[in-house]
């Protein structure tokens, strides 16, 4: 059906061009031969001819007045300030294009795996070496409170912390690795602020040594643990009720935000600026063009 319509449209085009003498000589001969054989085609040509005649029937109108120019008309037009429409339209279009390019660049760059520079890991490694020499063994000791007690002791190399929590919740929410670590014994002389029953987190001593100061946290802490994340980050408290919100982390741990490449904030700022330009100038252009 579609093919037939296309063929009919093509045929109409050929007939129309034939009528105006604008057909290629070879096509002209072919059509002339077809017209001899096909009365329907001839009829369609006749219809087109009548339409051409009908439209040509319209009189050629004369101008109702002279359009000759006066110096004032030309001067006035020259003095008229060029409208801001074109620059605004250009600015809007350019900003939009740049915005798209930046988004594309960001997408491409984000696909490249982030490689940690030596500077990123240096403080951590150095700290590990030093502290290993000084105190190689577990540093963080968590004194589990009695069931129902509201407080638990938490000690680090640089200080202590008292954390309010529910021990039952903590134990349940501990990862398996932690539970294993908790079951390990620790020499009594190395414990700080420890009192029976003791729970020693010894899952990764090197990392634990990085824990500096654990400040006290308020009520609402659901769990407390040490989690190693992305090889480098110590998260000492996780509030599960708040969707895994980090409560505390090691002072030496690398800030997650700091792992972002330096160009990303600049790119983001550029994107925002370009977005504002594109939207602002586009809106101004639209308003001006409506007014005109």
């Amino acid at each position, binding site marked *: 059906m579609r093919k037939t319509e296309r063929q009919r*449209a093509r045929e*109409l*085009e050929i*007939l*129309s*061009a034939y009528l*105006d003498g*604008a057909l290629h000589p070879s096509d002209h001969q072919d059509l002339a031969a077809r017209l001899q054989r096909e009365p329907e085609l001839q009829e369609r040509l006749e*219809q*087109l001819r*009548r*339409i*051409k*005649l*009908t*439209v*040509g*029937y*319209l*009189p*050629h*109108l*004369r*101008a*109702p*007045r*002279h*359009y*000759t*120019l*006066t*110096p004032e*008309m*030309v001067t006035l*037009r*020259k003095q008229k300030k060029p409208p801001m429409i074109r620059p605004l339209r250009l600015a809007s279009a350019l900003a939009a294009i740049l915005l798209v390019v930046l988004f594309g660049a960001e997408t491409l760059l984000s696909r490249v795996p982030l490689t940690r520079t030596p500077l990123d890991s240096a403080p951590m490694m150095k700290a590990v070496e030093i502290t290993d020499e000084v105190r190689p063994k577990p540093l963080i000791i968590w004194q589990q409170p009695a069931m129902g007690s509201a407080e638990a002791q938490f000690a680090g190399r640089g200080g202590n912390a008292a954390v309010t929590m529910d021990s039952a919740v903590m134990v349940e929410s501990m990862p398996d690795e932690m539970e294993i670590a908790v079951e390990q014994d620790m020499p009594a002389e190395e414990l700080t602020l420890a009192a029976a029953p003791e729970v020693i987190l010894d899952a990764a001593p090197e990392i634990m040594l990085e824990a500096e100061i654990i400040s006290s946290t308020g009520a609402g802490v659901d769990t407390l643990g040490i989690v190693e994340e992305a090889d480098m980050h110590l998260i000492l408290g996780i509030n599960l009720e708040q969707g895994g919100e980090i409560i505390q982390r090691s002072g030496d741990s690398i800030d997650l935000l700091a792992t972002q490449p330096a160009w990303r904030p600049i790119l983001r700022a550029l994107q925002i600026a370009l977005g504002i330009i594109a939207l602002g100038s586009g809106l101004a252009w639209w308003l001006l*063009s*409506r007014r005109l």
Partner: protein
Amino acid sequence: MDEGALIQEALDGDLNAFNTLVLHYQDMAYNVAYRILGEPGAADDAAQESFISAYLKLHQYRGGSFKAWLLRIVTNSCYDELRRRQRQPVVPLTPDLPDGETLEDPYWIKDEAPTPEEHSERAELQAAIQNCINKLDQKFRIILVLVDVEGLDYDTAAEVASTKVGTVKSRLARARARVQDCLQEFWELLPEIFRHKDEET
């Protein structure tokens, strides 16, 4: 009229030389604008605007057919006017038609005739044809006006409309077919020679 010399003089700042060109082409400019826009007032404005633009842009004229170059400016002015109308549609004054006639009925078309003193049937037919042209899409309308009303060849029409000759052929054929369909409603207005055999029975 030495067109080339007049253009050169106009380029040198001689407004009178340009006005000689204006007088020569003003009927054509108005006629094309009227057939595209369908309104005398709008056509008048578009024609005047075209000549002012042509004078100010004369330095952009790179030779070739001055008529085609000027017609391109006229059609662009008409495009601008049509776009402006789309943004700010003009509501026509609808006549009081107690018997339920529509705007497309001959009664209304008759009132639209630019020259009411002319013979009524002739005016009605012209108005009907113009009405059918007005119903076409812009791109078809302009090609139909340039070729069938103004009598331009395909190459010049393509130059004026800034398109290809093949596109002109295609648009013209479709425009003619649509006008033919449209004019079926007004077949009784068509003179004998324009009528189709089947339409009379």
